[in-house]
């Protein structure tokens, strides 16, 4: 056990797992956010499909549709730049935790429809994630991989190639 922990610490100390996790989650979320930003009304329509927010009065659902894509982009940028890495990872983990059950619920509704013929993994729909129509099982795998990847920046002791650590080091050198 001690050897395993030692190996994990050594691997983490190299900074590679952190860098890979930051790049994977950061690039994925930047891509998804970009697609939502490119067509804000399509995202608004998809948010409505989840019935997770009251449609009347409209201010809440409109605010979610207006702000969430940019919020995702800010979190992705934070991860990629290596600034507030833990906070960004926590927020992305939280978002995936919130939207995951909603995705499953929506897929279940489509699967339960009488006209649908096929297995649960055959359910394909536009989840509003920014990728167009996707198969639910693939989407859940992607989300799970991203959530697991978020755990690395949350618990890693490394700050390899993080802007925040480079700035801290520069400040320490100057003082």
């Amino acid at each position, binding site marked *: 056990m001690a050897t395993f922990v030692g190996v994990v610490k050594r691997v983490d100390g190299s900074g590679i797992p952190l860098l890979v996790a930051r790049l994977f989650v950061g690039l994925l979320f930047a891509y998804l956010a970009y697609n939502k930003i490119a067509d804000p009304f399509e995202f608004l329509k998809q948010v409505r499909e989840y019935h997770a927010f009251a449609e009347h009065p409209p201010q809440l659902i409109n605010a979610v549709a207006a702000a969430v894509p940019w919020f995702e982009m800010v979190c992705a940028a934070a991860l990629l730049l290596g600034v507030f890495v*833990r906070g*960004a990872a926590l927020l992305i983990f939280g978002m995936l935790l919130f939207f995951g059950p909603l995705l499953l619920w929506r897929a279940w509704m489509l699967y339960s429809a009488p006209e649908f013929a096929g297995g649960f993994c055959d359910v394909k729909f536009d989840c509003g994630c920014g990728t167009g129509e996707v198969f639910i099982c693939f989407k859940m795998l992607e989300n799970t991989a991203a959530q697991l990847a978020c755990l690395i920046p949350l618990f890693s002791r490394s700050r390899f190639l993080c802007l925040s650590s480079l700035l801290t080091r520069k400040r320490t050198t100057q003082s």
Partner: protein
Amino acid sequence: MNKVTLTLLEAVVLCVVGVAVGFAMNAMRGRDSIDLHRDYHPKIKVHAGAEQPAEPSELDAAESPFQLMTLKEVIEVWDDPRFQYEAYVIVDARSDDAYEAGHIPGAVQCDYYRIYDYLEQVVPRVLGAERVVVYCNGVDCDDSLLVCGKLIEVDVPWENIYLFKGGWEKWKQTDYPIETGRKQVQE
């Protein structure tokens, strides 16, 4: 400060920054800006005079606030000489990209979510028309229904409005032509 507190603080800062950036960018986007106060999905009431379609198997026979039109009937409208001199008007309720990629030839665009950019051109034509047929992508698309609701608000008579629920998906499956690009509005 311990790691948990620091992490939570980072998350709060990112939340505030992210939401602020979101609202600021939304405000600057012009026609792509989401109007926070606009009700984009109003409830549309069933009109007292709404009739059920003759062929319920082809159309969604559930209560529809507007008269429904089958693909066959839309083709008849399109083939009719009255469509050429705009006594009949076909309205495409989809976004720019979808419209330009392909639409019913002669259909005018009226993107519901950017509707105020289109009303000035569309309203004079639909007010003078005997029939206005509105469509969007297909049965899963609400945009045509919402545009019909908007036409009622600008005083287009209910009797003149028809909803083509089969939409672009149905038209594409026919041998009838499609038009791409933007229809030039003649003043």
